[in-house]
């Protein structure tokens, strides 16, 4: 169903999610957070980093209600569903889903909290619900 290529830079994230922990990378040089890529995170590629657990709190940076499936055949019978770019308290954006029964209640800037959703036997995905 999912054709996920976990690699060195995402393994801890996906392993953490299985234990209901939202994991981010944190620069040991300046304390800034990032996930996978350091682009626009004020972290340089040669910084040393550690994996830390995030608070799970954030707000909606942007979102889209998708009326077509994307990314995986899993979504063929899930439309419409909401994809959100969530700005976490740690100043890292994460691409995720916003879980709600009321699509109209979703707005940019609203506070959200992580909600771990099991997508398959192998994948638990950190999703978000409105606070």
């Amino acid at each position, binding site marked *: 169903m*999912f*054709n*996920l*290529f*976990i*690699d060195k830079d*995402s393994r801890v994230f996906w392993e953490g999610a299985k234990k209901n922990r939202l994991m981010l990378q944190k620069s040991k040089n300046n304390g800034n957070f990032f*996930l*996978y*890529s350091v*682009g*626009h995170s004020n972290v340089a590629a040669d910084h040393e980093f550690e994996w830390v657990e995030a608070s799970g709190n954030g707000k909606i*940076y*942007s*979102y*889209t*209600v*998708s*009326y*077509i*499936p*994307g*990314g*995986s*055949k*899993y*979504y*063929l019978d*899930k439309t419409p*569903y909401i*994809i959100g*770019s969530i700005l976490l308290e740690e100043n890292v*954006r*994460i*691409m*995720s*889903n916003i879980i709600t029964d009321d699509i109209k209640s979703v707005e*940019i*800037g609203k506070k959200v909290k992580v909600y771990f959703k099991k*997508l398959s036997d192998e*994948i638990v*995905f950190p999703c978000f619900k409105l606070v």
Partner: protein
Amino acid sequence: MRQPCIIGVSDAKINEKGCTSQDSSVLSIQKDCAIEALDKAGLNFKDIDGLAVAGLWGMPGPGVMQPNVLTEYLGISYPKWLDGTNTGGSAFIFHLQHAFQAIKNNVCNNVLILYGSTQKSNKERNFLDRPAIFSSQFDMIAGLPSPVGAYALAAQRHIHKFGSNKETLAEIAVAARNWAKLNPNAYKKDNLTIDDVINSQPICSPLNKLDCCLVTDGGGAIVLSHTDRKSDFKNDPIFIKGFGETSSHSSINYMEDMSRLDVAIKSSEDAYKMSKMSPKDIDFAMIYDSFTITVLMSLEALGFCEIGEGKDFVKNGNLGPNGSFPINTNGGGLSYCHPGMYSIFTMIEACRQLWGQCGDRQLKKNLTNVLCHGTGGVLSSAATTILSKESS
């Protein structure tokens, strides 16, 4: 002084289904475009010693290796310069500026830039089985349709921040259609209203089906040479006055500010600086319109209006045939053709306008400087060039 210049262009014919002729292949499309562009330029294949190509095709397994495939297929004898830069749909404007530098510095003399696609005929556009890999692994597990979902996230943010709305976006689609009606080779020529766009099938909010580019086959070729052999040219040379290129991210989530197209701000700043021009010196613009939101954000970033004021700038058909700021006179990726990677067509149409070869859609005003801008990936990369009848 040896000045690189464009001397020939061509685009592939597409039929009423948006396809090239039934027996064409991704390679034969490029050969046919090259033959036509060379003929219009007054050169032959034996003159070509530089080749640039990008596309969605390639050798499976060992790597795409498009420059090798085309060098062999077209029989180009030991080219001195090859470019396979692939930054998404913006790639061909990257090629143009790289070719400019190569010709200017005597690395090579005559360059072909080529593109071909059979994505419509071959139904190649299936995104549900692709591997969730690199930074986009999170996007794909979240079910983000690519690329439309990424552009939708930017559009939502732009609307939120600046008060642009669905009518704003629809204006851009309608202007493109009104131009396409004047282009015999455009795929979509039926009448289109603002309401048609707003009421079209929702895809990824706030973008509807008619906010999205077409899916067609297509191809194009551009021939560059230099003024030392001006006596051979059939067309007046078109000069490259300035250019800029950059990149920012691969997944939309790593774009610094989704409401502002920083890559286009940077690439156009470089192009204006090199050409000693500003937006007010540009007579008309060809702007890659992968989605309506791409145009809105590009207009702002290129300096044709202030950031956030695009919504007023595009009103009342301002970008269309009767507007004060015509763009995309071929009908754009929204209504002319969109074979997957479009930026080559911005330069092809710019040259035809400068040569006065555009028939019913020929702009009535005097044209000297045309800006071409390409976006690649998901607002990821940008390249801007300013083409001109005047040499540097």
